[in-house]
């Protein structure tokens, strides 16, 4: 099968914070990446520091940030689902699954990156991860792409065991950092913590600890 990575996440910046390094490694090695982004993160709380966005301008600003981040990561194609932040779990899952299935049949990915349903904290993450996995499971076992599921709930290792993939991303840390910077409205608050070296300190309890060094995934096992 021809290699092609399909990334499915609900919010602009999920692709960067969760797996920007992994995406950059694929695109650097010539593997095309298509990103399906569910919403424009309309209900985000971060408005820039100092403040430069408001509730109504935020989606317009985040759409531009997303385009710049995609360029930084080498993402070839961006598909927006046009959903609204915080509402995905209330949509009809069958309709969303149909939509994802159509995209999968068109893109024919060899690998899908999405959130691990039930282990990804934000209800939108869990809901979109769920319909993505439903869409993949409609394919016959031979046709199914591998699914790398991203989980980060505090108890996810207790529930799921150790991640199957622990990806060293130090070779593309600068690219990931550029994508983090591109999501300016969302990253200004954490950037000082990233750049003062806390992310390199192995004893730091800070959750930004590993952001520029490794990314972990579970391979989703279909029943």
């Amino acid at each position, binding site marked *: 099968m021809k290699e092609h990575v399909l990334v499915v996440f609900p919010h602009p910046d999920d692709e960067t914070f969760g797996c920007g390094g992994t995406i950059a490694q694929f695109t650097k090695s010539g593997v095309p990446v298509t990103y399906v982004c569910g919403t424009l993160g309309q209900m985000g709380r971060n408005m820039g520091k100092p403040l430069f966005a408001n509730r*109504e301008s935020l989606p317009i600003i985040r759409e531009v940030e997303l385009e710049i981040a995609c360029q930084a990561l080498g993402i070839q194609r961006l598909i927006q689902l046009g959903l609204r932040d915080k509402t995905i779990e209330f949509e009809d899952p069958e309709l969303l699954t149909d939509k994802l299935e159509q995209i999968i049949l068109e893109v024919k990915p060899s690998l899908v990156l999405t959130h691990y349903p039930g282990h990804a904290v934000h209800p939108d993450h869990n809901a979109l991860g769920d319909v993505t996995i439903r869409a993949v499971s409609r394919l016959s076992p031979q046709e199914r792409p591998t699914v790398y599921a991203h989980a980060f709930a505090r108890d996810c290792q207790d529930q799921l065991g150790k991640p199957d993939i622990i990806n060293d991303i130090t070779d593309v840390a600068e690219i990931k950092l550029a994508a983090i910077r591109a999501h300016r409205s969302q990253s200004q608050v954490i950037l000082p913590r990233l750049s003062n070296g806390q992310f390199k300190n192995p004893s730091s309890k800070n959750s930004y600890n590993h952001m520029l060094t490794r990314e972990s995934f579970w391979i989703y096992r279909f029943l």
Partner: protein
Amino acid sequence: MNPLNKSIVQTELDRFLNREVYLHLETTNGAYAVHRQESNMTVGAYIRNGLIRFGRGIITGAGPYRVGLKMEIGWVYAEGLTDYEIDPEGRLLLAGHDQEGRLAVALELSLSPFEL
């Protein structure tokens, strides 16, 4: 947005009196409040494009500010407002931000529906 100016906002509220007004009202401590151990509950509520009419609308407090809109059969209330903006579409945007610049409360009024 700019630090909330009470007299400007009061004049703006009066502009919406006794008219059909679209309301965005929201409060949140963020989807990650429990995950980040900032709180033991994740709470939030919002209404987008509530269609209301109010005959009395007041801003009060010494900052952060409170707004109450008195309707014929009820009230709209928001507390913790720190910043305001009248955007190019003439909508009144009020919000309360914490020290990190994160939105905690918003109350917005418009004569036409807000985008979905």
